[in-house]
């Protein structure tokens, strides 16, 4: 009785500010734009990519998840190119939009909201491959590959992990590049490679053959799919991210000319690899953020539609607590990740002398936190949907399976924690 009276009263005096926003007719979200600290032009950008995600990606989600020949993914790859999203961090002289990592993060989040699988493939293409090529490639390499990678003709990938080399990627790497007459011979296998089954060009990290007792060095290569001796395995059957193609790469005496080395010279592969990882962590943090917002929106709508005991279940105390926790986790994770992105862009563009060097610990912390919270929120979303959360017609299961990837993809939570600790401790050395 008291509850119905109070709800009648509150309805008459409802305030007119609501957080629900609509994008492209297909997305209704409770994303809170007042907490983001984005500039007006960043907000305009954000609205444009959410509109794109709603109109172009969301209608294709089921098709993307089915995988198969990944034709939906490849079509969307071209649409994303038309939108200009592949070269967000690439300089204008190389046909990119010359924007910041904040923009790349926002694009990643918007795409991940509709389809985390698509966003993962997009992230691997646009950040792991395109951005590395843009930062380290020679002018010849950039003019050969960037136009096609940016306009959607080519799909890119990056290969560092191996079945025996995950967290200890450098120490356990077995893929070897041996100097031969006129170039290098590449032998080995790479594993868990996103976009592997469909990519046209791969950035591959390999160990150099060094003399006994000498320091181990690494070299980064640009390897086109059609290079003789290079084959890919069949797509891996994954728990989540089922719309993103993943597979093994096999190199058998693959001959590579010196012009395929990425970076100013050979043996600097470790530097190229490590520097890319920080930016990868930052941009991919958009993945869990997008999933989290989708999970929250789904749970919130559901608990205000489902009625039990004569009331909407969202008004029952224990459910209110769930919503409160989900809301808080979502917004704190986002506020932190956006702050790190801002700091990275500031450092890249305007940092004055004396400004602290680029903080590796913050990029690791961003994805560490966003991932943990995304898995928690997705799990809670499944619980909020009750029995329906267990049925695959509802998206809760997909959110959870997709979120779970980020605990091991782009690095494990354990490595992120170890890295942050190491970075902080190095201040005391």
């Amino acid at each position, binding site marked *: 009785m008291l509850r119905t009276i109070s709800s009648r009263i509150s309805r008459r005096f409802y305030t*007119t500010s609501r957080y629900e926003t*609509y994008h492209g007719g297909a997305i209704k979200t409770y994303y809170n734009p007042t907490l983001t600290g984005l500039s007006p032009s960043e907000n305009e950008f954000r609205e*444009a990519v959410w509109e794109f995600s709603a109109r172009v990606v969301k209608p294709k989600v089921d098709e993307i998840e089915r995988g198969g020949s990944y034709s939906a993914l490849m079509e969307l790859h071209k649409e994303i190119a038309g*939108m*200009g999203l592949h070269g967000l961090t690439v300089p204008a002289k190389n046909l990119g*939009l010359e924007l910041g990592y904040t923009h790349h993060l926002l694009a990643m989040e918007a795409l991940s909201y509709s389809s985390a699988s698509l966003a993962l493939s997009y992230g691997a293409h646009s950040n792991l491959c395109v951005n590395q090529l843009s930062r380290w490639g020679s002018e010849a390499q950039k003019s050969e590959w960037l136009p096609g990678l940016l306009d959607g003709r080519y799909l890119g990938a990056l290969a560092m992990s191996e079945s025996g080399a995950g967290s200890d990627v450098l120490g356990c790497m077995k893929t070897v590049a041996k100097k031969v007459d006129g170039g290098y011979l590449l032998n080995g296998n790479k594993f868990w490679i996103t976009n592997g089954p469909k990519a046209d060009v791969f950035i591959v990290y390999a160990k150099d053959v060094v003399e006994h007792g000498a320091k181990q060095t690494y070299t980064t290569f640009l390897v086109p799919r059609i290079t003789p001796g290079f084959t890919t395995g069949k797509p891996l059957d994954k728990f989540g991210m089922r719309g993103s193609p993943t597979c093994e790469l096999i190199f058998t005496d693959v001959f590579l000319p010196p012009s395929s080395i990425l970076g100013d010279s050979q043996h600097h592969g470790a530097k190229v690899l490590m520097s890319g990882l920080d930016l990868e962590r930052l941009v991919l943090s958009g993945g869990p953020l997008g999933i989290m917002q989708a999970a929250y929106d789904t749970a919130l709508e559901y608990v205000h539609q489902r009625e039990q005991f004569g009331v909407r279940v969202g008004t029952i105390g224990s459910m209110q607590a769930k919503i409160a926790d989900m809301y808080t986790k979502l917004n704190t994770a986002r506020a932190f990740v956006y702050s790190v992105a801002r700091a990275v862009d500031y450092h890249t563009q305007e940092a004055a002398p004396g400004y602290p060097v680029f903080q590796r610990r913050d990029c690791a912390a961003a994805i560490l936190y966003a991932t943990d919270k995304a898995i928690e929120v997705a799990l809670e979303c499944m619980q909020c949907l009750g029995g329906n959360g267990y049925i695959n017609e509802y998206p809760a299961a997909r959110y959870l399976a997709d979120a779970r990837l980020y605990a091991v993809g782009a690095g494990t939570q354990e490595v992120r924690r170890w890295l942050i600790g190491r970075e902080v401790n190095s201040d005391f050395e």
Partner: protein
Amino acid sequence: MRPSTTRLLNILVPVKRAVDYAVKIRVNPQQTGVDLNVKHSMNPFDEIAIEEAVRIRERLPKGSEPVTITALTIGPPKSVETLRTALAMGADAAFHIELPETAPAPEPLGVAKAVQAIIEKQLNSVDMVILGKQSIDDDLGQTGQMLAGLLDWGQATYASKVDLDLEQKNAVITREIDGGLEQVCVKFPLIVTTDLRLNEPRYASLPNIMKAKKKAVTKLTPADLGVSFKPQMEVIKVTEPPKRVGGTKVESVDELVEKLKAAGFTAVS
């Protein structure tokens, strides 16, 4: 300006910033309208109008007359966002007739007079004005027709297909009417209002959004054009539609007729 022997095709597209079509609207507490503190975007029929203008340009064979598309909006400062969308979709330049934030929403006659003033005072020559058939906030559907009357131009409303003949200087337009489809041929200059099935508007790509920032937006006041937007209509009351009540099942036709008679329905012969 380079002198040229071929005349430009000039298309004017007035656009309106309205409540986004996906928003679940609520009547405001004063019952004078709906809660406007919600997302706004370009009226969907106006998006179709801009899209058609851009497609007309794309359909012309390469090397033919250049087409200039000018967008126009009337509203508070925020309306410039709608112009930016139009520019990002392919319009070349835009006019913003700025009204104060507190001014009442313009009515079709006021809008039509303002568009007429823009055509007569600001633009060199206009071959075609494409408007949305109605705006989704007031659903009045009068502006295109009033404009045609004021300018004494031909009009083709509820267009679902537009084909221009630049040699003959006319357009063959398919209209959606109650009975089906009607084809009309209208001489230049003309007014076209768009219906839903005319085209599917493109989303603005980021490169185009960034290019649009550099395109010209000319700001004008109603006084500059010599028009007034003084309302001619007053909204007395806005309420939600009555909640649907459950129906009842009847056992026979006789019972149905009895119930209809009791409800006040009489037979019409």
